[in-house]
């Protein structure tokens, strides 16, 4: 039964870690202290991965840089902050206090210590003594700790990843999540290592190596740390597509996906819409950092509310109904139908005549949009009389933009640049050719894929015109 009230059940059981909703604070500055996590839970967060505890560190000033674009602040953040610089004892005490106060929330503790079995055994036992629900192994931090043989120095070498995880699993009594670094050519390899070592789950992505910029006045690196600067971990909305791809890569891998190991997704989740996409590509819990650092803990309200409303609309009763639902749609070029055809169509009623589609198509794509004057003739840009001016003249004489659909290759660039919602649509048009993939073509007519003359003949036979 559906009504106006919320019916979707947002609670999760992630590798044995339960939380009332899938949204956890990622291990980062927002989860640096008991006071912060307490406030986050009051705001409604389902869980928190405590800021990484472990080896002693000292931090620097100007540790966060950010990438702003087009008047939009913080499309991404980068940081050289290290793991928690608060004493281990203080963190462990506060973790125990928070867990006692919030029995229904997921309290996961991120850890990173030097790579010896004794030190790892010790930290795992001490974390378990707090009553925490789970442990996340930070194999991802790309700065500061990696130079000391920790963080991404571990995550980038699947063998280290597996070895350390085995040490951890020797003493672990609560679920263990291995956090992966994206600073690697194939994300699947360290994930397989985690599977091999018997970890309970993986999480991804940690931050990407980055330099945020150079100051054009001082020529210093941004942010400037006493005249120097360097690579830091990159996160936020800008990294979401990278995270989604890596998440899907694990889900599709026969070993990792086949193991059904739960995956905690993160990397640029800012809204419930982002969250739903991570779920659809196989995430079982969701971690958020940059959006919280931008707007505060309060954003969890719409994360839950929006996700719940969307699930209600779609008829998904619980998170596991959503999780991985779009994974089977992910494929690769070899399996795409070469006969699939779409063309751009411009809604003349909605079009505001900015002509961005025209210039994009004409300069950089496939030259199939025309400027058409009121009398139906094709006109060139800037073809008005130099003495003509005024609002009415400019608006009334402005030509319209029209796609020559026969010439449109369906590249979708115009669709992407159009500033008006639903103005340009990609219309599926029958190509008149039977479906065939490059993979099939390579098998059935290998010569076509290797010889330009054969390709020409094939195209002529199939009626494929290249514009």
């Amino acid at each position, binding site marked *: 039964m559906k009504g106006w009230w919320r019916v979707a059940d947002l609670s999760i059981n992630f590798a044995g870690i339960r939380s009332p909703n899938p949204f956890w604070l990622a291990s980062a500055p927002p989860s640096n202290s008991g006071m912060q996590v307490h406030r986050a839970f009051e705001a409604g967060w389902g869980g928190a991965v405590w800021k990484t505890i472990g080896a002693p560190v000292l931090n620097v000033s100007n540790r966060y840089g950010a990438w702003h674009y*087009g*008047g939009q602040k913080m499309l991404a953040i980068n940081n050289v902050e290290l793991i928690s610089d608060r004493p281990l004892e203080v963190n462990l005490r506060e973790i125990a206090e928070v867990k006692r106060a919030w029995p229904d929330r997921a309290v996961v503790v991120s850890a990173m210590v030097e790579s010896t079995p004794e030190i790892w055994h010790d930290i795992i036992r001490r974390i378990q003594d707090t009553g925490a629900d789970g442990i996340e192994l930070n194999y991802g931090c790309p700065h500061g700790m990696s130079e000391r043989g920790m963080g991404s120095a571990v995550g980038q070498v699947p063998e280290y990843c597996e070895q350390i995880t085995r040490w951890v699993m020797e003493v672990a009594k609560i679920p263990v999540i291995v956090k992966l670094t994206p600073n690697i050519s194939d994300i699947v390899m360290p994930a397989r290592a985690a599977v091999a070592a018997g970890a309970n789950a993986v999480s991804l992505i940690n931050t990407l190596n980055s330099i945020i910029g150079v100051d054009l006045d001082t020529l210093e690196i941004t942010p400037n740390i006493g005249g120097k600067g360097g690579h830091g971990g990159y996160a936020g909305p800008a990294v979401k597509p990278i995270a989604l791809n890596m998440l899907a890569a694990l889900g599709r891998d026969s070993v990792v996906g086949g193991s059904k190991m739960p995956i905690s997704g993160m990397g640029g989740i800012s809204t419930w819409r982002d969250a739903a996409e991570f779920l659809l590509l196989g995430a079982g819990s969701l971690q958020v950092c940059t959006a919280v650092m931008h707007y505060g803990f309060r954003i969890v309200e719409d994360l839950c509310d929006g996700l719940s409303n969307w699930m209600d609309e779609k008829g998904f009763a619980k998170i596991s109904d959503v999780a991985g639902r779009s994974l089977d749609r992910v494929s690769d070029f070899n399996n795409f139908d070469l006969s699939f055809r779409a063309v751009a169509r411009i809604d003349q009623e909605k079009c*505001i005549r900015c002509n*961005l589609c025209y210039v994009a198509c004409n300069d950089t794509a496939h030259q199939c949009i025309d400027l058409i004057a009121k009398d139906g003739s094709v006109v060139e840009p800037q073809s008005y009389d130099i003495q*003509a*001016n005024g609002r009415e003249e*400019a*608006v009334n004489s402005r030509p319209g933009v029209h796609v020559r659909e026969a010439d449109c290759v369906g590249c979708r660039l115009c669709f992407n640049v159009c500033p008006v919602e639903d103005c340009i649509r990609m219309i599926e048009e029958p190509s008149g050719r039977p479906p065939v993939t490059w993979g099939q073509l390579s098998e059935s007519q290998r010569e076509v894929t290797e010889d330009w003359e054969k390709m020409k003949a094939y195209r002529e036979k199939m009626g494929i015109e290249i514009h």
Partner: protein
Amino acid sequence: MLTESFESTARADALGELLPPLTENQAAVEAARCLMCYDAPCTHACPTHIDIPKFIKKISTQNLRGSARTILESNLLGATCARVCPVEELCEGACVLQAEHKPIAIGRLQRHAMDFVYRKGIDLFEPGKATGKKVAVIGAGPAGLSCAGELAKRGHSVTLFEKRELGGGLSTYGIIGLREPVEVAMAEVRMIERLRVKVETGKEFGADLSLTDLNSDYAAVFLAVGLGATPALGIPGEDRIIDGLEYIEQSKVDAGKLVVGDQVVVVGAGNTAIDCATIAKRLGASSVTMVYRRTENEMTAYPHEYNFIKREGVNFSFLTQPVRVHSENGAVTSLECVRMSLGATDASGRPSPQPVAGSEFFLAADQVVKAIGQQKPSLAARLNLKTEKGFIGVNANFETSLPGVYAGGDCIRWRGAASTVMAVQDGKLAARAIHERLVARG
């Protein structure tokens, strides 16, 4: 003394520039909103066809010098136009972001770029390589300055004759400080001078110099003489009526000395009338009434000006024509008016107002200001130039019926609304034509 100077300052403040400059951040956010339309309608709508998306993009990349240059390449009086252009009727009115958004604040962004270069004292152009050709420009208003500057950029030796004490024309004397402070017009005059244009003020064409003098010394002449004085209403007591342009001039030159009545009636409903009413209201009049013989549908003030003046608290008396100024002991006491009704369409394309018999009434007033347009240029007749509805007639190259004598600006505007930006474009195009002529002659 102290009271006087305080009064002057307070009055100058009351008529200070209405819109504050955009902050760096406001400009960045506004510039980022611009879609960067291709072959943009704002550029088409601008009479000088400034490449608006280009200058806005340069603001968003913090290339303010390049932004200003983009503006000035098309319009040398970019700082004036940024302030006085009726942007709602031009660039901003044509912006594609109308229906679901607000148009980009193009005028204010242009001012942002212009203020930057004037504040920093950056010159973006230099005089062209000297051609040895001499051109005389008559009148240092927007058309004259534009033409002189464009010719100087091409290397011609230009002398700009101006009958007033200061250059700038209406920008200096005729546009309320609320919209354009004197300093902005002065900065533009100085920029034109730095292009080695020789500006000779206090030289009146016809009185201090003749066309014969000019023809012997100069290879071409550009007339940018503007229009004449405010015409007479032709009613008894007219000598008590204050000329609107003089009212504005006094408010700009020395606001402290401007006499402002308590109950002010402004006759007219055009741009100048709006400015006069604004001055009266802001400088202490307890009531200001604008009197117009037609209705709000026919008034020549732009809708945004009408909305502005209503918000200032000015009253309107439409379908009203003054018939007599009453005064006692030399002081105005009231303006006698008659009600009008609209009849058949007249030569201006508007319904002609007819007095309603027996409808006379009195508007209490201690000051009456008239702003009912300007007389057509008397120069045309004196020089025996061909005219167009009383204005100086020119061909497509802005050349008058006298070869080598060109004209532009308000003095040729026989159709369409006179505006600063149109005058700038006239000056620019005339300069091109004059240059062609001088180059062709070798």
